[in-house]
């Protein structure tokens, strides 16, 4: 049974379309970079997310310099920082020009395993102890924010992907069944969907979170959060898929297949689902942002990923003490990353939809 040609006309055009749209292409680049850094955080970041040093609490960013205090050119280096207190007992950091720490590449560090699989022991760059390299400043415990943000990306970005994967699977099954069989099945399933969509998400999130036993360790908490988010999110995707299936099952090739006695399951699998692919991708792209934001919100409130693990949300919670922002504005940076990743997904999703829409209309007309 041949599938009707579907994607051969579209694929070459898609990348070109994305590239031409500057905003969308920027989004693709940004996401690519963020995901890469998230995966290789162990390698790219100078410190592990656990590496703390209370002597450097809220240390401002240490600029990498090329010219020393005597005006001479040097290889890139960083000055040492000494902590002192001002009249109001606030921490103040002064540059100690007597201590120079050159920037080193492929620094040897504690062994790690990327994604628990690939072992390694070098980091892209760093400075030798006791020097500290704080590209974007330090948090309250003297942990390097740059490193923590990269590690945080793992949680924030992958919760989005995993959560959506689960939601989408559920939505695909339920939406597919509802859309294909129609009638009573459809009605019942859609009523269920409506119910899920109607409950205010945040309240459901809190309620479900309260059910999670307190004895869970971090990984289990992570998994339960993902599950909870997926539990809330599947309904929207299911409705979209159901809509598509409903219109697709009227197509001639479906009827032909039925007439030839192909089983319902086969029909759904081979004829209907492939055609929902492109629009599904758009729907997925546009759903991921809400997962990222919900996880961030949860972690921000202290109900999600806990210290010492990093997620952009819980990194931002340091900024809750509003006063801190004045003296350590860099703690807002994780927010920028949330914003960038969400915006990238939104822009790409929208651009894809614009790309597909006129095609979709043309396709419908030809049928």
């Amino acid at each position, binding site marked *: 049974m041949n599938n009707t040609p579907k994607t051969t006309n579209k694929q070459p055009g898609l990348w070109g379309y994305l590239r031409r749209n500057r905003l969308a292409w920027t989004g693709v680049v940004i996401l690519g970079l963020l995901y890469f850094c998230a995966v290789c955080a162990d390698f790219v970041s100078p410190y592990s997310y656990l590496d703390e040093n209370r002597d450097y609490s809220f240390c401002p960013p240490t600029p990498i310099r090329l010219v020393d205090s005597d005006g001479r050119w040097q290889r890139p280096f960083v000055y040492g920082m000494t902590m002192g207190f001002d009249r109001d007992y606030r921490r103040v950091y002064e540059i100690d020009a007597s201590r120079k720490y050159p920037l080193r590449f492929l620094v040897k560090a504690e062994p790690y395993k990327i994604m628990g699989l690939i072992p390694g022991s070098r980091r892209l760059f760093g400075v030798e102890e006791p020097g500290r390299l704080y590209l974007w400043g330090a948090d309250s415990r003297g942990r390097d924010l740059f490193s923590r943000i990269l590690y945080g990306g793992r949680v924030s970005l992958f919760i989005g992907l995993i959560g959506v994967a689960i939601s989408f699977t559920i939505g695909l099954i339920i939406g597919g069944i509802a859309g294909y069989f129609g009638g009573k099945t459809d009605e019942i399933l859609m009523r269920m969907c409506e119910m899920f*969509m109607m409950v205010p998400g945040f309240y459901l999130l809190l309620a479900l979170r309260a059910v999670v036993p307190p004895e869970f360790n971090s990984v289990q908490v992570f998994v339960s959060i993902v599950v909870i988010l997926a539990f809330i999110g599947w309904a929207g995707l299911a409705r979209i898929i159901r809509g598509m299936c409903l219109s697709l099952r009227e197509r001639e090739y479906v009827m032909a297949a039925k007439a030839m006695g192909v089983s319902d399951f086969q029909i759904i699998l081979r004829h209907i689902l492939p055609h929902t692919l492109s629009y599904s991708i758009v729907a997925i792209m546009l759903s991921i942002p809400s997962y990222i934001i919900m996880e961030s919100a949860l972690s921000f409130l202290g109900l999600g990923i806990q210290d010492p693990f990093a997620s952009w949300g819980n990194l931002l919670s340091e900024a809750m003490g509003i006063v801190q922002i004045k003296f350590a504005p860099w703690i807002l940076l994780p927010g920028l990353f949330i914003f960038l990743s969400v915006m990238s997904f939104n822009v790409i999703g929208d651009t894809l939809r614009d790309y597909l829409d006129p095609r979709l209309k043309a396709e419908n007309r030809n049928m």
Partner: protein
Amino acid sequence: MIGYIVKRLIVVIPLLLVMALFTFIFMQKTAGSFYDSLRMDPLISQQTIDYYENLYHLDRPLSVQFLHWVANLFRLEFGYSFYYNIPVIHVIKGRLWNTFILSLASLILTWSVALPLGVWAALRRNRLIDRLIQLLSYIGLSTPSFLLAILLMYGASQTGWLPLGGMRSAHYEELSILGQWWDLLKHMAIPAVCLSVYSIGSLQRLMRGNMLETLRQQYLLTARAKGLPENRVIYVHALRNAVNPLITILGYSFSSLLSGAALLEIIYGWPGLGNLMLTAVRSKDVYLVMASFMMSGILFLIGNLLADILLAKCDPRIRYE
């Protein structure tokens, strides 16, 4: 029209029942050990514990317990808040109103900004102002509300223009009526704005899309052929049609409105339902958690119903089905 409303109600009531069921099952998971730990708490009188054990018939089979639970709901008996040491109903009452006015303020703000922007963008399609508005919408859609809240609160702390939290100033009682309203407005400003940014972005895009769609309709040509001035063609004929689908969505947007409000209440310290729910979850105040959860569903129901009535009024095709 009554028939339409009834039909909508039939959809939502099962939702509430399901929520009640879920709530109840959850309680079963924690209630057992919950009462044990209560007994050990010296602040809670044995009398209170006995009263509630009796009320909820904890010794009877589950199905009976559930019926009692639902029956109690109708009597506005929501259980006891052990964290606040008073019956839940007293804790929740004030909070509901606060969440409601915050949500309402956000709704008004959203619609009064997004609609004109959407219309404007549609009329100036692809020109500079349209592109600018689209960009701003993207940014609005992508900015997490809590991030914006922190930034605005920081700004407020530096400039002193707006209060940094809560719903009322310390000297609220001493203010005149006008002063009290102004005080309320100042407190509402930051959370309402943060709450609205996302929905303004999304509603604006919808309005623009609908408007563009409507501008292609045949009846606009008819209106022009009648010699009507362009203003009337657009603002009476086109706009009235473009807005209708948005009102349909209004009902569903209540869900995310309440959600978003909850988060902002917590950050800003606005004494609303969401804030309450968080406290309840953190202190494991079972009945309070469940009542808050149910309340959010009821708030949604009311909002949805109002939106449905509004839609029926605006779209004659529905009214006369």
